[in-house]
């Protein structure tokens, strides 16, 4: 597949696009947890690593088919997500975030010390199975899944929990179930992304899944506009491509990247698409004339 694509797209771009797709899947998972349900997670990289190691090990040791490995990696990550979701019964806001951060670091240390994961030496010899087509089919699948979940009874309950947990419970929503559910689905996405990552790079090292990576993912969704799918996609795209775009600045690249983050936050404090309802925007652009005359300005 990739060999076919390579005739048209430069492999470097292919690589960047593939990485972008993988980050998109992971970021959409985080979007469900933090953006939709409002549960702060500073530990999303941990789910990525569980999925990555899970899928890779299954492939190496049991020789399972690739897609099955991805699924299994996702499920393992979901299990970890459920495990992390339970503290959200007792913790909220920043405290939950900090607990997930701790969890993320613990997972990293465990992978660093386990024999089967290759410890600090990392895990090599993973077959290259990930290709652009698989990645983007999964991206689309993820977008559709998250979109459908968000626009359903389940998704409305998640938003209700984000907005006001007590009111949500008084409306009959058993919040812990939904929070754990959001963690499970969100980390499933991360796990699948991790599996793709493992089979793209063919080598894993625990150091790649530290808290810095978790915050990177959080930046993706916050910069794009917390709570909207298009925001998560936009944020991830910009922040994944920015380091590549900024290569011209050589040594100053990461300084510019940091400045870019601060500047984007200051100019659009709610994220690039924060407060922009794309659906309404599209709807209104078809009848923008009568909107201007009949409806008072809002949004």
């Amino acid at each position, binding site marked *: 597949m990739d060999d076919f694509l390579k005739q048209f797209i430069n492999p470097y771009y292919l690589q960047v696009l593939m990485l972008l797709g993988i980050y998109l899947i992971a970021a959409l998972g985080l979007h469900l947890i933090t953006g939709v349900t409002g549960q*702060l997670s500073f530990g999303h990289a941990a789910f990525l690593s569980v999925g990555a190691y899970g899928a890779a090990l299954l492939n190496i040791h049991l020789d399972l088919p690739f897609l099955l490995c991805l699924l299994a990696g996702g499920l393992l990550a979901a299990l970890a997500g459920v495990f992390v979701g339970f503290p959200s019964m007792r913790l909220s806001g920043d405290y939950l975030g*900090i607990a997930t951060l*701790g969890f993320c670091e613990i997972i990293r*240390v465990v992978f660093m010390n386990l024999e089967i994961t290759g410890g600090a030496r990392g895990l090599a010899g993973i077959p290259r199975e990930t290709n652009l087509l698989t990645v983007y089919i999964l991206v689309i699948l993820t977008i559709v899944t998250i979109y459908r979940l968000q626009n359903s009874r389940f998704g409305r309950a998640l938003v209700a929990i984000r907005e006001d947990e007590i009111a949500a419970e008084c409306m009959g929503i058993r919040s812990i179930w939904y929070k754990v559910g959001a963690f499970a689905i969100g980390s499933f996405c991360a796990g699948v992304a991790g599996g793709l990552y493992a089979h793209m790079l063919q080598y894993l090292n625990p150091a790649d899944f530290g*808290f810095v990576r978790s915050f990177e993912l959080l930046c993706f969704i916050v910069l794009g506009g917390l709570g909207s799918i298009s925001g998560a996609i936009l944020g991830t795209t910009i922040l994944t491509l920015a380091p590549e775009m900024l290569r011209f600045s050589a040594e100053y690249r*990461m*300084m510019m990247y940091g400045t870019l983050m601060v500047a984007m*936050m*200051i100019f659009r*404090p709610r994220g690039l698409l924060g407060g922009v309802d794309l659906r309404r925007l599209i709807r209104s652009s078809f009848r923008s004339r009568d909107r201007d005359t009949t409806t008072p300005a809002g949004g």
Partner: protein
Amino acid sequence: MDLQTLLQQMINGITLGSTYALIALGYTMVYGIIKLINFAHGDVYMLGAFVGLAVVLMGANIWLAIFVAMLACLCVAVTIERVAYRPLRSSIRLAPLISSIGVSIFLQTLMTLLKGPQPVGFPQVVTNTIYTVGLVKISTVQIIILVVAAVLMIGLQLVIKRTKMGKAMRATSEDLRTASLMGINVNAVISFTFALGAVMAAAGGVLVGMYFNSVFPLMGVMAGLKAFCAAVVGGIGSVPGAVLGGLFLGVAEVLGVAAGLGSYRDAIAFGLLILVLLFRPSGLLGQPEQRKV
């Protein structure tokens, strides 16, 4: 482990812990007042270490180095607050957090560019003698760290409890809006808080640079994260809590390593963090939060 080893390890742990505590103070005060996890704080600490090093290299003594580093970090922290956080004060909670991550990346890269990625040694500025007190050995540098940390923390406590600005800080951390309605210049208070935190971190940076004899651009990352954990363990928002949390974490880590769990050391720190959060979410000395309906 025999008593002597235990005591020796305690001394080591307390020295390490008091440096965590110095950094943790900045996290806890800033969080207490504007509910921001200031990610760039670890990098302010790193800057402090570099400034202190530069001053020492110019031939000054350690006290002058600490003082200049404090001044420099004070300016940097106030500027960061002014540029990167103040415009975001009324926006969503995560916005300043992201902004602080941006600042952190900026500072780390800047220092890598200026000073290179390699750790730089810290010239020996004090003659390091080892004293034997009873069963334990303690070095001059350890004594300096403990004394400076203690003086700074007591000083900080006095500033918060006795001065007008300290009162304004406490009022602002109770309720920012009410405080501003009462005529407190909230902007000044917040700048002051950042300044105080930076001063503590700068001192911590110079002391750590001297103690471990190495200063490098990424030194604030792990130290910052650990110190932040210390602040949470102690009860974020509480100044004595940050001190207690720092010491607690330092001792726990050192004892964990001594017990042969060296490779799981970070897991010990974070495991403790999670346990404290689960069983006492507001930390050891924090005010329990009332569920408001």
